[in-house]
């Protein structure tokens, strides 16, 4: 040993390195396990929150569970979805509504929950379609869009907000400025409007003109003001001229004052909607100067402050929500876009350029204390919106925050040039933020909002109550109602269509009224008809009526598209389309009666079953 002291040294170094390595691994593993435990929801267990993510150019809403990040449902709204039988056939009224109000696609940005006393009541979710100036209302008992409306006099329906605390109105910002009379020949500078809708009738009650581009919206917690960030006060029509001024604004609209002016007939009615000109109605609109081209605007849960994010300026502007005076403008980092809140007086601002979430203390920032920044955490990458659970209510829940990142780059296995969007869940329950998990989504969630599972899971229904026009079992029929019209009343239940065949003629218009008479949850059936652009999805109790052309002569098997039962594959029937001039009376080749008196197609009976 004495002859080889270097061996001893080398051995000690190796052992030390090994120990350090092992300990390091241990520490890393334990942090990973801690994070994993926070988001692990075992099979069969339920998430703590519903998360509603806008689908962006998917035109839908993604429903996820938090903290697991599991995708539970996609609610189709502005785009047809064959899988849900939504707006596919040209005679589907929902498709016709989409076409009548703009397009068969939408660009959804901001999901907003109806509120009672400043907290979600589980009644509605509102969402905008930026591209076609539409707003949809989703009923949260059935998770389906029940109203889609076009907003006149407005292009680029961007920021939306419900008027707190009781959803008195729905606020919709017009982003793309327009000639005041809508005429391309009008040489005057373009302007925009903020629209105010009744959340029940979805009727546009009035609009307020603003000379600039309206971006994000929020409201004071007492129902007094709506706040919209406005850029391009220059009223420029190209990018260079939109960024000339040092400051743009937060537009505060005094809602009671505006309603009074509208009631007094001060509005200029265009396309059926009174538009208030702020110049003629002093007090309705207040422009609060903030650094140019601001983006997000968010009101603190206690309703004291409005936080406008600087975007091009590394600051947020803190405005008193009652006096509308600026109280502070602290620096937070590069590219601040949106702000959300916990229940302990902290704000979290997304930093697009820094790819960070910055946590800062509101009181300290207002008082000008130097230590208002609490923490920063890296996100991946270029975060847009962020939302803490309940951060948009008067009582945030304070445990999780979702970062909605615009780029995912290296975060997932490469899947060709079109990469998924990256959502990251952050634990905000402690002083320091902790990254918990990430999950990808299709394009492209912009914003999110959350509802405690305990509230919504008691409200949501799992079967439809039979509608007035539901077909009852035993009342199925096929009736010729005209020389070129046939009505088919059909029911379906595991595992048969009744009737399991019907005859029509080439040139007929077939009106199918079909009811899923199942009463058990999740027993969804489909009615797919080959070569007729028809797939109807029928959750239990649901009735759908649709008229379609019989098409070319032939045998068309309608079949169940939603795997239902042991006889799912056998669950089908035939539409027999006879040639126009045929006089042949079709007789069936075989039909066996099953125990319920339904006829099921099958091979000739082989006799006894013993």
């Amino acid at each position, binding site marked *: 040993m004495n002859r080889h002291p270097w061996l001893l040294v080398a051995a000690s170094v190796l052992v030390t390195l090994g120990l350090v390595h092992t300990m390091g691994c241990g520490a890393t593993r334990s942090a990973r396990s801690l994070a994993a435990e926070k988001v692990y929801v075992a099979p069969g267990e339920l998430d703590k929150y519903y998360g509603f993510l806008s689908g962006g150019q998917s035109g839908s809403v993604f429903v996820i569970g938090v903290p697991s990040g599991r995708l539970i449902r996609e609610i189709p709204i502005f785009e047809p979805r064959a899988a849900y039988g939504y707006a596919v056939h040209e005679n589907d009224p929902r498709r016709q509504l989409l076409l009548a109000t703009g397009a068969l696609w939408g660009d959804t940005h901001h999901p907003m929950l109806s509120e009672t006393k400043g907290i979600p009541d589980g009644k509605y979710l509102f969402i905008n379609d930026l591209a076609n100036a539409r707003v949809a209302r989703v009923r949260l008992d059935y998770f389906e869009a029940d109203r889609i409306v076009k907003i006149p006099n407005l292009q680029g329906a961007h920021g939306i907000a419900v008027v707190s605390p009781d959803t008195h109105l729905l606020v919709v910002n017009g982003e793309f400025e327009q000639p005041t009379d809508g005429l391309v020949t009008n040489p005057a500078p373009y302007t925009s409007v903020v629209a105010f809708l009744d959340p029940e009738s979805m009727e546009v009650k009035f609009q307020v003109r603003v000379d600039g581009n309206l971006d994000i919206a929020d409201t004071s917690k007492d129902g007094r003001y709506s706040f919209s960030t406005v850029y391009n006060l220059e009223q420029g029509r190209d990018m260079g001229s939109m960024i000339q001024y040092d400051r743009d604004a937060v537009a505060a609209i005094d809602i009671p004052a505006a309603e009074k002016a509208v009631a007094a007939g001060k509005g200029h009615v265009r396309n059926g909607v009174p538009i208030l000109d702020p110049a003629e109605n002093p007090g309705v609109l207040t422009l609060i100067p903030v650094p140019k081209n601001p983006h997000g605007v968010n009101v603190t849960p206690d309703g004291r402050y409005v936080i406008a994010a600087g975007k091009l300026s590394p600051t947020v502007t803190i405005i008193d929500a009652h006096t509308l005076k600026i109280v502070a403008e602290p620096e937070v980092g590069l590219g601040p876009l949106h702000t959300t809140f916990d229940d302990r007086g902290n704000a979290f601002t997304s930093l697009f350029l820094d790819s960070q979430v910055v946590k800062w203390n509101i009181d300290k920032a207002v008082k000008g204390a130097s230590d208002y920044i609490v923490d920063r955490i890296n996100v991946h990458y270029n975060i847009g919106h962020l939302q803490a659970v309940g951060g948009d209510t008067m009582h945030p829940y304070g445990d999780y925050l979702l970062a909605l990142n615009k780029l995912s780059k290296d975060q997932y296995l490469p899947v060709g040039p079109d990469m998924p969007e990256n959502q990251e869940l952050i634990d905000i329950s402690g002083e320091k933020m902790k990254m918990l998990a990430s999950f990808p989504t299709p394009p492209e969630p912009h914003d999110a909002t959350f509802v405690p599972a305990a509230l919504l899971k008691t409200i949501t229904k799992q079967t439809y109550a039979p509608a007035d026009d539901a077909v009852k079992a035993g009342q199925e029929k096929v009736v010729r109602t005209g020389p070129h019209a046939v009505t088919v009343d059909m029911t379906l*239940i*595991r595992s048969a269509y009744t009737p399991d065949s019907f005859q029509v003629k080439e040139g007929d218009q077939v009106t199918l009224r079909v009811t899923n*008479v*199942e*009463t*058990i*949850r999740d027993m969804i059936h489909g009615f797919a008809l080959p070569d007729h652009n028809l797939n109807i999805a029928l959750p239990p109790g649901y009735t759908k009526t649709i008229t379609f052309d019989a098409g070319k002569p032939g045998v068309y098997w309608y079949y169940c598209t939603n795997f239902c*039962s*042991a*006889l799912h594959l*056998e669950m089908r029937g035939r539409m027999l389309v006879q040639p126009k001039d045929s006089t042949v009376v079709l007789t069936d080749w075989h039909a*066996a009666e*099953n*125990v*319920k008196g339904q006829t099921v197609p099958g091979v000739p*009976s082989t*006799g*006894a*079953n*013993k």
Partner: protein
Amino acid sequence: MTRERVLYLAAAALTAAALMLPLWSFSMSAPQYPDETLHLQVARGGIGGDVQEVETLQHYIGVRFPTNLPELAWATRGIVALTALLLAGAAVGRSAAARWFRVACATLFIVFLAGSAAVVQARLYEVGHVRDPHAPMRSVRDFTPPLVGPVKVGNFTVWSLPHFGGLALVGAAALAVAGARRRAA
């Protein structure tokens, strides 16, 4: 009021109640019905509960849902008759003849219960054995649900249990027996 009269009035009240209440119940559970066990209640008016779902499931294995149940009409007549006998048993007083009348009442009651049990058991056998030969799933074997207890049918575990009405009848029979016993001197 004498002990016999109290017991027989109570027994009559229980049998009368059995006319209003479900007599027997079946609960069916399977893995894909979490927190939604299916229930059937047999009352004298017929079978209630998750009838549509049970019927829908039964057709896979060719079980015919019993819709025509003449024994229920007979059960009603029997219970009405028993109620009348029990009331008479309460009214007849304390003579030796009265006691024999009550003994007869209690005996009849027990015979009625035993007979009903036999009829129901036969019906349950029929449900599990007289099946549609054209049923989709011939692999599920014939079965006999016990009057009380579980049976495995395919992926379902089916429990048969007396419901309030059935328990009331058993209770009434016990009271009728107690009221017919010779009293200790």
